[in-house]
């Protein structure tokens, strides 16, 4: 059994490497070819850069990307002014923003989810608001955030917050509402107070569902940060990914 399992993981690894190699080679061949050189207005040619004027592909080849990547990885913390910082610094900014937005979302979603899950009244009362706000796209929040908050960093944090709050809120409310009645009855027969019951019975019972919501939310936060920083700008990991071409 063990030998079989090992050989399977070994073969899977070898296959992965092979697929990567084929991908890189295809990429290299596809981008190295010289296309037809276009005749164009010198002004326009200047705008388009060497790629278009000399028949090179617009897409950088694997070697080019590798070299740039290596250059950024080996020197991640340089700082040449507001629009040119090392990869490490930009990553740190992005992580800090995701962390801030996510933390705020946790702080709002979990207590609110508890309230909704425990009280039928609150659940009914807040449901229309949740149903209206939840489907709003991150892209739609961004102009609103930029316009009202003005600061680009805070806007990004807000957009991350507002987009990652929903899965957590809904999962927490659902987890709290579906705690087994028997467990609550045990707590009731033991005359456990509401506060202690929330922490010693409901929280552990709902924890798996709450954690699922938190996992979904962190995934969303990472998706949203890329979009948010593209639009709101500032020091981002995004500016690295799109600046290779123009440099």
């Amino acid at each position, binding site marked *: 059994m063990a030998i079989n399992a090992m050989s399977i993981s070994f073969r899977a690894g070898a296959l992965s490497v092979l697929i990567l190699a084929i991908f890189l080679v295809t990429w290299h061949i596809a981008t190295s070819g010289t296309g037809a050189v276009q005749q164009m207005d010198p002004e326009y040619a200047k705008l388009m850069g060497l790629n278009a004027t000399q028949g090179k592909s617009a897409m950088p080849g694997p070697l080019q990307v590798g070299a740039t990547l290596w250059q950024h990885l080996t020197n991640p913390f340089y700082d040449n002014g507001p629009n040119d910082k090392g990869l490490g610094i930009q990553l740190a900014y992005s992580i800090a923003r995701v962390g801030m937005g996510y933390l705020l979302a946790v702080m709002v979603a979990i207590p609110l989810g508890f309230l909704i899950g425990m009280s039928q009244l609150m659940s009914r009362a807040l449901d229309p608001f949740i149903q209206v706000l939840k489907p709003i796209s991150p892209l739609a929040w961004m102009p609103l955030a930029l316009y009202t908050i003005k600061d680009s960093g805070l806007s990004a944090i807000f957009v991350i917050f507002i987009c990652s709050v929903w899965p957590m809120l809904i999962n927490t409310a659902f987890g709290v509402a579906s705690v087994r009645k*028997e*467990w609550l*009855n*045990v707590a*009731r*027969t*033991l005359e456990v107070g509401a506060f202690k019951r929330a922490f*010693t019975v409901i929280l552990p*019972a709902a924890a798996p569902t709450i954690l699922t919501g938190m996992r979904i939310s962190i995934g969303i936060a990472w998706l949203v940060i890329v979009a948010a920083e593209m639009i709101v700008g500032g020091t981002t990991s995004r500016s690295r990914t799109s600046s290779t071409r123009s440099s």
Partner: protein
Amino acid sequence: MTEKLISIEAIAKRYPAPNGVQTTVFENLWLGINRGEFVCMIGHSGCGKTTVLNILAGLDAPSEGVVIVDNQAIEGPALDRAVIFQGHALFPWRTVLGNVAYAVGSKHKKWSKAQVNEHAEKFISLVGLKGAEYKKPSELSGGMKQRVGIARALSLEPKMLLMDEPFSALDALTRGTLQDEVRRICLSTGQTVFMITHDVDEAIYLADKIVLMTNGPHAQIAEIVENPLPKDRERNQIHKHTDYYAVRNHLIDFLVSRSRTFKDEIAGKPWDPMNVPLVRPVAIPPSAPEPMRKRA
């Protein structure tokens, strides 16, 4: 010993039915339970046994009537009435000790952690789970889980122990051992118990009194059967007792037919739900006239 601990007075439970009228599960139910008594309730599925138990526990409120414990009407769940739930209802994120200690700590809020654990361990070993204190419920067999539930309830040293079919999910062998243990513990501490069961033999082995409930809706207590077997009965000896088959047949007879036809049985006769007949089925001596012996 005949002091009344619990007095169920004229309770009814009604649920709104979809068509607007109410369905009455039971109504005008009266029952007294004396201190130190072991009372079993038998009846068909759906007649409202769990509802009665939940009302006794304070987890459910009657639509009418009151339940009085120690001269006080109950208003909700309380630590002096411990419940052993049918599905054991242990917290899966706590160990055996943690589950029992949670109950002990809820009752004795001023105790130190060591005191709480010591008290909990005492009851864990009482139900024969010494050595399994640090196991999680998922690591226990069904019988062991139910034992933890029993230990948790007993550790509260309640005035009243309420059990809803506590052994119905267990295999016959485990059920037997647990019945023995519960009986031993309850006898030695003079515990007052109200238990629901579907098992006639379990009722005969454990109960002092067996409450017979007719089929719902509009269920009622038909009669209270006094167990004629001696208090010091033994599981593997009871079937040799002269009165054993008299009780057993009486109970089975009720479950098979009388629970259904009871309303016709009392039709036209005076019926006082406050004082239902107390019956003590005993073996009929051979000299008795023929028709009387048929049942025994």
